[in-house]
């Protein structure tokens, strides 16, 4: 039984946050809710998300989740963003229940990003 509120994975993602930052000339979705602010930036080529970046204001779980999302979804199909659900991350990062509301803000941001990039590619 560990009393550490952060798993080793959360600690690593938070500490590195390699995808933190902005992308110029990219699609961007921003959501603010539950005291959390998340902006996501994506470049898409031929239906594939080539680069992802995030900015986030929130607790370590929010930042770690945003980082985990970016790391995982670079290289995936843009349409996958529309289906994104945080439930996998909630588990793999052992997010405590009382924080689930905040993590759902990431889901909103990703889906909103998905609509933007998919909508854009439809044109």
């Amino acid at each position, binding site marked *: 039984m560990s009393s550490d509120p952060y798993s080793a994975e959360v600690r690593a993602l938070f500490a590195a946050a390699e995808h933190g930052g902005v992308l110029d000339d990219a699609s961007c979705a921003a959501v603010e809710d539950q005291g959390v602010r998340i902006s996501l930036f994506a470049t898409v080529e031929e239906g594939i998300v080539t680069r992802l970046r995030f900015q986030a*204001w929130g607790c370590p779980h929010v*930042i770690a989740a945003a980082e985990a999302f970016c790391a995982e979804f670079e290289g995936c199909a843009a349409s996958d963003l529309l289906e994104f659900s945080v439930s996998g991350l909630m588990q793999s990062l052992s997010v405590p229940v009382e924080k689930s509301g905040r993590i759902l803000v990431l889901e909103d941001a990703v889906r909103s990003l998905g609509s933007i990039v998919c909508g854009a590619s439809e044109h």
Partner: protein
Amino acid sequence: MTDRGQMIYMDYAASTPVDPWVVEAMTALMTADGNYSNPSSTHAAGRRSVEYIAHAAGQLASLLNTAEDTLVWTSGATESDNLAILGTAHYRRERGQHVISMRTEHKAVTDPLSELERHGFEVTWLDPDATGLLDIETLRAAMREDTQLVSIMHVNNETGIIQDIQSIGALCRENDTLFHVDAAQSCGKLPIDLTALPVDLMSVTAHKMYGPKGIGALYIADRKGVHVEPLLFGGGQQRKLRPGTLPAQQIVGFGATAAIAQSRSNDDFRHLTALRDRMWAGIRDIPGVTVNGDVANGFPGILNVSVEDIEGESLLLALEPLCVATGSACSSKSQEPSYVLRALGRSDALAQSAIRFSFGRPTTAANVDVAIELYRNSVDRLRRLAPGRAA
């Protein structure tokens, strides 16, 4: 991060290591060739325990400049606060059922007061000024005929603000109101002269002053009308005010702690002042940083700072391996912003970004320099990671 070798402990207001001399004194009372006997026993071994305890009482009494028999041993400041507040309130019920305290008190005071409210007492919760200080005129205005007790702490555990207990006590005396002081954070650190101070009840605890956890005391002035009803009943120890086998090793530890504090507190104060000033000088130019409390007049062991537009929990994690507190240790498990800082008028956002650096005897200037660098870098990094407000 979890390697203790790297930790830099800056949470001395939450608890302190025990002085090695104190540990030695305690060990001597525990082992088979020591004085482990029950002080309630009448035989020679028991009497020896009694003498050790009397010696320790003398040490704590000397630190506070009071008589030994004004001190009752408890399990810590929480119990002392409860005994003072619940014990007096019930004893003085006839005198009136109005009590005055502040919103910035420790839970060990506010919670027994809330318990009194549930039993028909009325509590007036005073607000401090923006630095955390109680204005004496605010207290005067709240005083009533039926005010039987005022409970105001000496040094605030979150901000380090020092209340003027001399003036508060004088006002209480004018009104025939008892005055309880939670001195958990000041005992052994600031001069306290109970012979001179108009204080009727004072709570102290060893573990904030390089003594063991789980031992405290309540000072009960030897003055007409000052009395508490016990919360525990049993073998009649301590004039029935607080029964139970006296934990000799803990008491002797507290006594030794008091003796060391008496000889060191001036040096400690200078040391802490230098550290606090160095820390503040190192971070005060960060845009949006503010002190919670008062650097000029606060207890120098504590520096509590908020910073605009930073999420507190992420800041705390970014500061590792620095061990510091957000809000008070006692409430830091909840995600709520500190009620103490809210009472100072801080916004939720500012309050939740608060970090309490608290320094101790073992803290070095080099530790402070690391803390400064970590704090600057962490604020910088989290700000760069954050989306602009209008994003």
